[in-house]
């Protein structure tokens, strides 16, 4: 019997030799039909986890078993950053290089680790935000999260690596992920009764649930704020009898970690939300798409899903399958996520058709963020008017904000929609905040005089990810970090994003160099124009917003370079 490749802290960080029997057994343990073409990506993820790589011979074997060509498997490996075709080092250390890690000095740690470990069997890399900005500096070691790294404990870590110590022998506290809610609210503190909302939904039926959701005014909490009831109804109205519910747990927005909390602490509510959505639209299958960075949550989520099945609340009419991403931010875009779920590269598709009309495998599909589903569960149990008790007319309810950066208590804060930024800053101990990046890199940069801005869907400061910076931080560094992030995460499908994100970084290089006033002005004009070009002509939201950090800088950052 093969050990589950997702076993938390595996006994050894060495990987077994490639073995087709072991591979087949491992894949079959994960899924009854692992060789279906649409499982190709998942099988690669599982093999990567089991053998530490997806080498060409492994790809050839999977191709022969699945009928997916080696070239297609190669194209997946070349797209997803966490799939590695080369033999694994004994230790693979990936530092998050989000701006929060950067202001905490991750670059020094990377240099230090590279210098100390240059002759060790260890690969030192950086990766985009891994959802641990509340515990900087964070890294992944062989897929496991390590938090609160600093200049002193990095030495200890390097020594453990040099001594070849297995991860089990490392200090347990390094792996601690704290999911404290610093300021609870309705969604995170109500007396949840498991299955009650679902029972009500089942009893009242589809139309009642849809009307109920309508009455709640819930809007998608993944960022776009699209009315959830409208999304569900569109899917429900489609004639196709096969429909899917998908949960977007590809929490890649730099500075966000609320899904990490919900999936760890309120897992039941996420699952129940999906089951309620299934009742509302008439779906019999759900997929939970978890980002590869959250590999360490798999075991727990699987266990909770199993409990639901054992109680008969899942499995009969509706079941949920967990699938993993593999290091691609763009897969948080709903249509890219659906492509990824179907085993392809995460390239966003053209809209229309919308997922509600033609989504996963061409079937009507609901795509909801983790927190939206938690809110749906809340609404079904507590009622839509209870949900509306807080928040604003157009942005009802509350949401969790992931707060990171220069404050005394980084972490999770649930606030009513519409609460001003300054309330959040007061709660988290950020009195000397100079500016706040709200809503992630593509969100709004708010300066001190804008801290009365409400956090809701009607305002520039939508919240969700709230990164706080004090006066010592360079807005230029923040801009560069975000712009590099978008270049790295562009899927490469459309011209303005694929080439524009690179050109934007070239322009920033230019802007940095000493030059004539004329050229400086030209570069500035070029940056504004390129931002607008990307905004207007890009294929998806990533490209449309990838230039905004630069625009924020030019509008707000003058004098703070």
């Amino acid at each position, binding site marked *: 019997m093969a050990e589950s490749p997702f076993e938390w802290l595996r006994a050894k960080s060495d990987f077994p030799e490639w073995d087709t029997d072991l591979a087949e057994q491992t894949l079959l343990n994960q899924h009854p039909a692992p060789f279906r073409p649409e499982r190709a990506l998942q099988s690669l993820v599982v093999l990567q986890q089991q053998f530490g790589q997806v080498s060409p011979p492994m790809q*050839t074997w999977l191709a022969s078993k699945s009928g997916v*060509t*080696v*070239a*297609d498997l*190669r*194209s997946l490996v*070349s*797209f*997803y*950053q966490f799939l590695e075709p080369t033999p694994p080092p004994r230790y693979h250390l990936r530092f998050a290089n989000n701006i929060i890690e950067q202001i905490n000095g991750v670059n020094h740690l990377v240099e230090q680790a590279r210098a100390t470990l240059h002759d060790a069997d260890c690969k030192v890399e950086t990766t985009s935000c891994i959802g641990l900005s509340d515990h900087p500096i964070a890294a992944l070691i062989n897929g496991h999260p390590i938090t609160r790294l600093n200049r002193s404990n990095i030495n200890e870590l390097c020594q453990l690596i040099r001594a070849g110590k297995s991860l089990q022998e490392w200090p347990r506290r390094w792996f601690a992920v704290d999911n404290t809610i610093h300021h609870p609210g309705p969604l995170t503190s109500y007396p949840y009764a498991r299955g009650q909302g679902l029972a009500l939904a089942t009893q009242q039926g589809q139309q009642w649930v849809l009307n109920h959701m309508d009455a709640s005014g819930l809007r998608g909490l993944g960022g776009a704020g699209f009315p959830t009831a409208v999304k569900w109804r569109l899917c429900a109205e489609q004639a196709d009898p096969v429909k899917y519910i998908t949960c977007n747990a590809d929490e890649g927005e730099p500075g966000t970690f609320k899904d990490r909390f919900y999936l760890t602490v309120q897992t039941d509510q996420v699952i129940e939300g999906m089951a309620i959505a299934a009742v509302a639209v008439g779906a019999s299958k759900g997929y939970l798409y978890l980002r590869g960075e959250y590999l360490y949550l798999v075991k727990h989520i699987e266990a909770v899903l199993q409990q639901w099945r054992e109680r008969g609340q899942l499995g009969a009419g509706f079941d949920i399958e967990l699938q993993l991403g593999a290091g*691609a931010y763009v897969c948080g875009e709903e249509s890219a996520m659906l492509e990824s779920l179907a085993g392809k*590269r995460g390239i966003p598709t*053209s809209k*229309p058709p919308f997922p509600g009309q033609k989504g996963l495998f061409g079937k009507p599909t609901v795509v909801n963020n983790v927190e939206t589903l938690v809110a749906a569960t809340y609404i079904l149990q507590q009622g839509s008017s209870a949900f509306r008790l807080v928040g604003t007319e157009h942005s009802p309810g509350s949401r969790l904000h992931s707060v990171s950066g220069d404050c005394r208590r980084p972490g999770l804060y649930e606030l009513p929609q519409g609460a001003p930024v300054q309330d959040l800053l007061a709660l988290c101990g950020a009195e000397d905040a100079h500016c706040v990046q709200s809503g992630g890199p593509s969100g709004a940069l708010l300066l001190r005089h804008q801290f009365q801005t409400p956090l809701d869907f009607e305002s520039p400061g939508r919240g969700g990810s709230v990164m706080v910076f004090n006066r010592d931080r360079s807005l230029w560094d923040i801009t560069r970090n975000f712009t590099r992030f978008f*270049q*790295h*995460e*562009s*899927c*490469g*499908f*459309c*011209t*303005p994003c*694929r*080439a*524009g*994100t*690179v*050109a934007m970084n*070239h*322009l920033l290089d*230019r802007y940095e160099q000493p030059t004539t006033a004329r050229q400086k002005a030209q570069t500035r004009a*070029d940056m504004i*124009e*390129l931002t607008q*070009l990307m905004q*207007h*002509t*890009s*294929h998806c939201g990533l490209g449309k917003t990838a230039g905004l950090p630069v625009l924020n800088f030019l509008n707000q950052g003058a004098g703070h370079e």
Partner: protein
Amino acid sequence: MSDQPQFQLDGQPIPFQPGDTIMQAAHRAGVYIPHLCFHPQFRPHGSCRLCVVNMQGKTVSACTQPASIDLEVHSETTELRQSRLRLIQLLFAEGNHFCPSCETSGNCQLQALAYDLGMTHYHYDPFYPTRIPDGSHPELFIDRDRCIQCDLCGRASEQADHKAIYLLAGRGQHTHVAFRSDDGELGSTQAQAEDRASHVCPVGCILPKSGNYPDIAGARLYDQIPIHAQGNHRRDDGGTHDD
């Protein structure tokens, strides 16, 4: 005719059939909207973004946007021409386009659109990427330096040749055309010079190994007549490519 639904493109009524995109209808009506990745015989891709048009305050790609009744679509505006020029310049900057030595020069749709949009220079710093060519096929040569990732070869190979040889791989700026063979080389596929896919590339990425430079400068496809006046063609398509 009068019963057919219509939309307005730059003030001109364009009739359309159910299921048409803006591009399909305009193309049928003989109205040119600049494009590179669109081809009337293959499913739309929507990646080059050259066909961006304005519609109800939004900028959309004409090749993926469904036509609908009473739409007011604007294509030939100063702003959109400028956007297209910049997109073309991005395409030039991100690849390695050395027109003077390129077999396709004069017959190249990328170059022709650049001429048409008045491009004189790249505007952006050239990226000078390192891209690996593939010369493994006896009759075809792949020069990835010129590839614009439009996937026309992929679509033609799948939809017309039923071979599905070409695909896109990689991510971001590393996106590249790849081939469905075990060793990843074109020479190990069933590709043939007569395939539709061998004759669909709008630039000089997929080329025959012999018979290049058949026309002198001045006698090539786009030397005299701009692309907006004759459409997206290749010199070897007998004038049927874009019809």
